[in-house]
């Protein structure tokens, strides 16, 4: 038995002190991280952190209470606080905890070599990145590399008792070029569960250097409607912040999504197929079960543009009289994974199914348009209506099928409903570049037709 499960069991036993308790759940999380940071060409810092936290969810009658703890010795106090909250909470007809069901195990999500990683390995990767960038041509370079070992455990009074351990190597690199007052930026992130998959930090360095330098060729875009090619980072930002929540059952049940009552309807072009790949080893937080211990699954949400399903956790499934799809997650109000927030419906890894085109294929057919690698502002989009506006951070003007320079100013206004219908071509490579606070959507390059741009 894992250490976390043993701690969880001892906290769960506390429930016996409360005769009126209907059900209780313990969630525990331990994350051990080694980090190295590079700043302006030099290594700056090394970090070793061990985050430990847990949460208690208690149901008394139909009331639900919640509490958190940052240390195992707070377990008894946390159980009492959760029970007291549950006693005064108004009844929730749909309050429930999962019962035991077999959960799949996901191979390849843990690598002992990552857990035992040498700092020299991380240092070499970081220095390879730095040395791939020409110091004479670039203004600055920043990089962060991490080795992460994460364990979670979920236990409840219905007999659910699960634990999962995964590892992750993550890298993010950023560089800046400068000519006069013109400062440009380029950045990419990547991750892998194992040292066996190549994490080519040198290739990333070379690619982002080229991006930063090309953007020094400052261009303006004309206002009007045009084709826009979205890099996977832009797909993640725009569709992650605004689209992903629109398929979650709690938004559907509260009628806060443009897709309410649209099951079976065409909501996107035929190029669009979206699967929530809960069983993917490539998820940023892979596990065979969700954050309340229910088995995760691969759920087809959109198939060839037709809306097929929404995503449910146990509570929303009970309300909708259906089965959970294993989509319970614990996220803060800022969409960061956080044990200190009660489980709610969330995507595991909503993934645009790849097409056949390369990124170059998508760009070469655009006579005049935009290649948007990284937007800003997607987080201010409105989930209920799907309307969003973004501005460029890393962006290029396309003329006659080629990226010709960087663009710094425009507003791209649309809605998720409109954008899904205008997706004309889909790239063939889904990129794994999720970041901690917004993991909901993964995708390949997308080409979107006839988008309104205001300069």
């Amino acid at each position, binding site marked *: 038995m894992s250490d976390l499960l043993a701690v969880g069991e001892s906290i769960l036993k506390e429930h016996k002190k409360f005769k009126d308790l209907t059900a209780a759940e313990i969630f525990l999380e331990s994350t051990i991280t080694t980090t190295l940071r590079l700043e302006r060409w030099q290594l700056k810092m090394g*970090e070793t952190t061990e985050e430990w936290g847990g949460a208690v969810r208690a149901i008394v009658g139909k009331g639900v209470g919640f509490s958190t703890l940052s240390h195992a010795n707070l377990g008894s106090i946390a159980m009492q606080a959760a029970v007291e909250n549950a006693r005064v909470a108004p009844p929730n007809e749909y309050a429930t905890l999962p019962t035991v069901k077999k959960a799949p195990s996901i191979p390849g999500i843990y690598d002992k070599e990552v857990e035992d990683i040498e700092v020299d390995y991380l240092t070499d990767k970081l220095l390879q990145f730095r040395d791939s960038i020409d110091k004479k041509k670039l203004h600055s370079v920043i990089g962060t590399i991490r080795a992460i070992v994460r364990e979670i455990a979920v236990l409840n009074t219905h007999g659910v008792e699960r634990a999962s351990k995964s590892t992750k190597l993550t890298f993010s690199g950023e560089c800046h070029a400068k000519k006069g007052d013109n400062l440009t930026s380029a950045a990419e992130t990547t991750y892998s569960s194992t040292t066996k998959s190549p994490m080519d930090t040198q290739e990333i360095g070379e690619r982002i250097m080229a991006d930063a330098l090309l953007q020094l060729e400052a261009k303006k875009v004309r206002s009007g409607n045009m084709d826009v090619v979205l890099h996977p980072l832009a797909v993640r930002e725009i569709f992650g912040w605004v689209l992903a929540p629109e398929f979650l059952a709690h938004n559907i049940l509260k009628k806060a999504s443009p897709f309410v009552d649209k099951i079976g309807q065409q909501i996107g072009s035929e190029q669009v197929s979206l699967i929530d790949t809960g069983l993917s080893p490539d998820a940023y937080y892979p596990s065979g079960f969700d954050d309340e211990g229910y088995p995760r699954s691969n759920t087809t949400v959109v198939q060839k543009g037709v809306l097929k399903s929404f995503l449910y956790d146990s509570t929303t499934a009970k309300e909708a009289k259906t089965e959970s799809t294993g989509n319970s997650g614990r996220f803060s109000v800022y969409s960061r994974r956080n044990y200190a927030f009660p489980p709610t419906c969330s995507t595991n890894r909503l993934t645009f199914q790849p097409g056949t085109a390369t990124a170059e294929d998508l760009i070469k057919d655009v006579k005049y348009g935009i290649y948007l690698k990284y937007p800003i502002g997607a987080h201010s989009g*409105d989930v209920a*209506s799907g309307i969003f506006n973004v501005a460029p951070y890393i962006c290029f003007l396309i003329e006659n099928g080629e990226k010709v320079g960087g663009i*710094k100013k425009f507003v791209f206004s649309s809605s998720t409903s409109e954008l899904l219908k205008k997706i004309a071509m889909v790239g063939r490579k889904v990129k794994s570049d999720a970041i901690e606070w917004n993991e909901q959507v993964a995708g390949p390059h997308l080409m979107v037709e006839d988008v309104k741009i205001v300069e």
Partner: protein
Amino acid sequence: MEDLIQKIIETATSFGASYADLRFDNIQSTRIQVRNSEVTSFRTLFEQGAGLRVLVDGAWGFTMSSDLEKLSSSVGKAVKLAKQSASHRTERINVAEQQRFKDDVQWKQKKSHDIISVEDKLEFALEVNKRPRDLNKNIAMVDNVYFEEKMSRWFANSEGTFIKHSRPVTGASINIVGKSGEITVLRGKALGGLAGLEATPFDKFLQITEEETRNVVELLKAKPAPSGDFPAVFNYDLGYLLAHEAFGHLCEGDHILQGDSILEGRIGGQVASDLVTIIDDPTMKEASGIPAYGSYPFDDEGIKAAPTTLVDEGRLVSYLHSRETASKLGQKVTGNARIENYKRLPLVRMSNIYFQPSTYSEEELFEDVKDGVYLVDARGGQTTGQGTFHVGVQMVYLIKKGEKGELRKGTAIAGRTLDTLKKIDAIGKQISFDIGGCGKGDPEQMVRCGSNGPPIRVSSITVGG
């Protein structure tokens, strides 16, 4: 507690750290969230732990744990990691010299969280949730939060500074979604402060709730916002977002060191119109005497809080600094190193940044605008070191011949920061206070910031439509 903290710092120095500092947090909070009458979160949080930072051979190391005993045993690892970085450096990181402090600062509650039962707080949250839906049938969803927190933070360093700061926080927030046919609109508002229940009078928040419900109903009927370039009056919240998001981040010393700010090397230069003075003030207080939402007595490096003028009549006069960035750039420490909690490293952050008020009344701000827009309340903002920004706008009013006119739906504005600051041609006289938050770093750290300031006017801004 003090002995154990001192012992850990002594262990760090005995392992070779030339400087070490430690932050220990003890937090207890209650959070009630309601969504269409369903209590989606009724949480009591207990959180404590400490983070230790060491400077060894001119590079940093860091470790943290929720268990002080465990932290003691990981000091050696942090020192080793710092040495690993130092072995690949050609220049040493230093921290600027600073005064040593010993203090125990307690910000008290006038109206204690304990004078109202948790049942009454729950009833308040449920009533806030119900009120908009009682008032109008087109209110599709209401999501609101009540929260209260008591936090104590200890700071100690190897130079002999030892500070304890305790403070309460209370607040409430609401998001209201209106729906009519295929049209959906959203409004959000918050009330609160670094104080007890006096920061969040329940009756006042219910009034705000009713007012926002009326706004949602009006927005449902409104046409879309126009798109293109317009003269614009920004209400206080959008003025604040321009100061904070578009400009303030560019002044942060760590961004300057990273080469990720267009303000690098521009001290003394003109970056805004002559009318503009921008100040960051962690000692700022609201009219009621409650500290503004981004206030603190000492920063998280133990530096006594003081206001910093960043822009003086259009000229850039200072950045915001930690001890490291001040040392590297040869400038005065400003006391802007902050953490979200003990788990994280100090970053250079704003506190309460604001445009210094001028003399214009709201009516006078509108007077000279023939055909423009009045932008009301932000919905998030984002900036880049390249000096571009994007801010969501909740409501837009057309301005015709100097008069506030028709309401339009929300939109977004975007632009180049320095161009926009140079286009400021009037600043209001009335400063407003609000609560806000700011995210930065990897992993992202959220800190509280005062969303304060007067309304401003710009001669042209790009509106998204």
